[in-house]
């Protein structure tokens, strides 16, 4: 262990250490805390210039109610779910298939294909903006959730393939030989051997992909325009333009947007961290 652990019995030292780290965390999250605080303030207070004092009146419910009733955030939220969940499922399915093949069925060119997946995954998305937008327009998918779903599945498949391929490659090879010797077809091997064994990786990948897709803003503004399709991120920025001085409403909406990934993160933290490290380290 480095740094040297503070001994178990040094109670006071431990308590002091913990409190100083807590202080650092508070400073670290101060910007976010400020927005949270603002999200429970009333508009009158903000007008009166009380940005930082203790709120005299808690308008938490009012502000969030305003977000739901006066803005289309709820619609955007649902849109985000409609985009994110199918994308995650699609990515998991495709990358399990590609990862399985690329790790277990080497053939001439398989390394090249793998390199393409890996390399493509690092390209800044902006590079492909113009053709992708054009493609979606031609396919008639522009301004539908499908445009975002298709794009996200395609783009995330690069990273996810890398992830799944490395995970499956790390499984003992004899398991696969045994399955083959036992007469399992590749499909049966996938169904009965790969899928049960990669569940932890799928969990990690699911939460990573969820976060990536949910938080996407660029493609949201490039591929959608109407409220019926727009995800929360684009909605939030739109909202910010419409409610310029109503910082309490904007803050409430901001918190609302941040909530699902943060909740997902706390629910599946281990998967997230493990996935991120593995993804980054391997890729």
């Amino acid at each position, binding site marked *: 262990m480095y740094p040297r652990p503070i001994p178990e019995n040094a109670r006071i030292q431990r308590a002091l250490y913990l409190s100083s780290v807590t202080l650092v965390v508070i400073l670290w999250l101060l910007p976010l805390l400020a927005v949270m605080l603002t999200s429970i303030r009333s508009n009158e207070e903000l007008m009166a210039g009380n940005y930082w004092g203790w709120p005299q009146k808690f308008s938490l419910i009012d502000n969030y109610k305003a977000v739901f009733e006066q803005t289309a955030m709820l619609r955007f939220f649902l849109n985000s779910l409609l985009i994110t969940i199918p994308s995650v499922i699609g990515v998991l399915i495709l990358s399990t298939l590609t990862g399985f093949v690329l790790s277990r069925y080497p053939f001439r060119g398989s390394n090249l294909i793998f390199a393409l997946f890996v390399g493509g995954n690092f390209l800044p998305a902006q590079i492909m903006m113009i053709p992708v937008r054009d493609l979606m327009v031609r396919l008639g998918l522009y301004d539908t959730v499908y445009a975002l779903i298709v794009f996200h599945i395609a783009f995330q498949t690069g990273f996810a393939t890398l992830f799944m391929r490395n995970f499956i490659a790390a499984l003992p090879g004899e398991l696969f030989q045994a399955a083959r010797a036992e007469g399992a077809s590749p499909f049966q091997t996938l169904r009965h051997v790969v899928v049960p064994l990669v569940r932890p990786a799928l*969990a990690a990948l699911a939460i990573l992909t969820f976060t990536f897709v949910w938080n996407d803003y660029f493609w949201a503004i490039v591929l959608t325009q109407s409220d019926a399709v727009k995800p929360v991120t684009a909605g939030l920025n739109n909202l910010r333009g419409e409610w310029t001085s109503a910082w309490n409403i904007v803050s409430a909406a901001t918190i609302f947007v941040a909530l699902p990934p943060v909740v997902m993160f706390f629910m599946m933290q281990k998967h997230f961290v493990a996935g991120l490290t593995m993804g980054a380290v391997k890729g």
Partner: protein
Amino acid sequence: MTTDFSAFTTTRRRFLKGTGAALAASATGLCLPALAQAQEITIISNLSNVEQRQILQRLASEYEAKSGAKIVINNMDHEAHKTAIRSYLVVGAPDICFWFSGNRMKAFVTKGLFDDISDLFAKENYKSVLGATTSAVTVGGKHYGLPMGGLLWGLFYRKDVFAEHNWTPPKTWNDFLAFGEAAKSATMIPISMGTKELWPAGGWFDHMNLRINGLDKHIALMDGKVPYTDPMLTPVFDKWNDLIKGGFFSPNHSSFGWEQAGAALAQKKAAMMDLGGFVRSAFPEADLPQLAYAPFPEIVPGVARYEDFSVNSIHVPANAKNKQGARDFLAFFYKPENLGAFLAAEGAIPPRNDCPPSKDPLVNAAVEELKKVVGTSQYYDRDTDPDMAQEGMAGLQEFMVKPERREQILKRLDKTRKRIFG
């Protein structure tokens, strides 16, 4: 490096549960997007004024009740809409959309993206009530949109503030300079300005150029026929420079937009502001009676009074699915009482002469003022090429922050002008 995945197994069940729930959500959610019905009319609005949105919604509901059609309104951010319209007119067009008349409309008309609604004009006999504004939506004798309110640009101020300091709206350039000094000594910002969206800087330029060079030369510049380095612009930037150096404009104006600048006017932090009638939306209801209009002061004596008078418009995209439904709704929407109510919220001057007289003194004042105007331009970003406008307004904003860079900015703009207009 190794990664320990044994940690995963403990929470696998929870994960599966989560996925299950998510799947269920997506299954129910997938049915949500409404399928387009035959009698559905979709509208894309770019209205940033909440009151106007509410009126549009109310009119839509009334029409729904009356006709049985279903109206879907998509509100877009005003700025984002400028971008989006280029896509949706080609694919996924709504049945009705908001846009701007004049050059901006013409750009889409020449690409065949707006529907010719001359039939609606004829049927409803709009020509007889619209008068001169018809020309703003007419290309080659055909009508491609209905003009909405006109916005007369000028300087807005609070009557109570002016009364308190015993000020009168400046009429000449010297008046204006003197007024600025007076405002500063009253610890007020003379001119509230927010240039984050760039166009307010363009508007200020329009005013100064119209007052110094007049309409024809201004339009020649907008059409790319006059270089930005032309000596005719020297006095414009010289005088503007004086204002900037003199601290006439809000500090840090590039970090906020017109709404925040409007709020400063309402909060008596600034004395005047250059905008259209929609400045009212930055004012609390109770303060509205204090808001007043004054024309931009004369700079070069003898130059006739020209103003930016921008006319918004409403259109039927050529690719709309329900063009008849769109016409029917427009006919309803364009009834004098409906249009009047809609425009009143914006403080815009109705294009129809049979709208009920406005209760808003500001509008009535603008109508009166407009009679004195000799000629009108639209607005910087409506009169020139969009690409030029983008570069130009950024350049003007930069000039307002770094006036010492005038030479290089103008050279750059002229390079852009040459590229665009050949």
